[in-house]
């Protein structure tokens, strides 16, 4: 386990900035004087309290399976992939949101994209190909994706037209159970 390098940190924050508007809250100091840090172990990036990260140094890298919140994985080409486990953090400071009706929640959780007919409401002024968090009508985060159309264009779209391309959904906790935390 090690802290991120300059380039890695930039890549991770760049990806997070697609979905979140306020990144500074991520590393803001906590009330108890602690703060959150990013740590890398087995090419996975974890978002963890500094005190816990310091404690974790007593565990060998091979034996350390996970700590804190796993944000995603660094690929071998130096890119960063967000995992569904990062959803609670993304949902907190989401820049754009899409609320999905009840009839659209299940298809989304089974891995399909969001179509216009399933959208209950969406945030205004959302450009296309921008990261957004998908929520149910009762404000429960279901996953995240990338907008297929801008809000204005999406209004003119037919009901079967795709509004948001899925990137990750909560169904992955079951579908990718084997590979989500290791491998």
């Amino acid at each position, binding site marked *: 386990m*090690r*802290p*991120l*390098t*300059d*380039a*890695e*940190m*930039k*890549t991770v*924050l*760049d990806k997070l*900035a*697609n979905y979140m508007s306020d*990144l*500074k809250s*991520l*590393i803001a*100091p906590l009330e108890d004087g602690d*703060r959150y*840090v990013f740590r890398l172990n087995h090419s996975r990036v974890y978002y963890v309290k500094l005190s816990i990260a310091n404690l974790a140094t007593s565990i060998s890298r091979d034996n350390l399976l996970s700590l804190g919140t796993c944000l995603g994985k660094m690929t*071998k*080409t*130096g890119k960063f992939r967000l995992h569904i486990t990062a959803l609670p953090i993304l949902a907190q400071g989401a*820049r754009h949101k899409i609320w999905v009706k009840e009839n659209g929640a299940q298809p989304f959780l089974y891995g399909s994209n969001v179509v216009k007919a399933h959208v209950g409401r969406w945030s205004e*002024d959302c*450009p*296309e190909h*921008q990261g957004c968090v998908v929520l149910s009508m009762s404000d429960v985060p279901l996953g995240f994706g990338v907008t297929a159309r*801008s809000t*204005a264009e999406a209004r003119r779209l037919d009901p079967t037209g795709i509004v948001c391309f899925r990137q990750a959904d909560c169904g992955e906790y079951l579908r990718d159970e084997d590979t989500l935390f290791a491998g």
Partner: protein
Amino acid sequence: MAPTRTVKNKHAGPKSGGKPGGGKSGGSKTGAGVSKGKGGKKGPIVAQQMKGKPNIAGLDKKKKKKVYTAKELGIPELNMVTPVGVTKPKGKKKGKVFVDDRESMNTILAIVQAEKEGAIESKLIKARQMEEIREARRIEAEKKEAERKAKLEDTKEALRKKRKRDDGKKKGDDDDVNIKEMASAGTKAAKPKSVKKRVSFAAE
């Protein structure tokens, strides 16, 4: 003694039996003769015979050792993806530089956020401009369509009026003709002749 024997035996192997007597018969060979003449002792013989062997082995080794690297041959390197952090400029210290203090993290964060904000803002502006252009085009197209429709309606109206006028004139003419016909043919109106096409074949 033992090593010389083994060497001799080994030497004898490839030469197929010419060896045992070969000590002196090998006198025909200059090298062997000289060595024997010089020493007459066992030591030099061993040395000579040992010399022969390592030389052969050494040649083989030399041949095998000559392996050229890609750099020596000047072969261009393969196109490969070089991951971030792998390529390092020369003269710099080895190892990774970690970002763990709040200040440097804040700096990176501010840079990233500013970049992202700029990108999103420009995207939004672009989208708005495109939307305006689309709206203007749509309005123009609607206008054109309305004009075309109005023109069509006008033409239709004109045609209708014209037809009405023509009908009125034609009706008047028909009445005159009818009266004239009636006058000439009496009250019995002649049936209009049915025009039927007939085909006749020429008789042979």
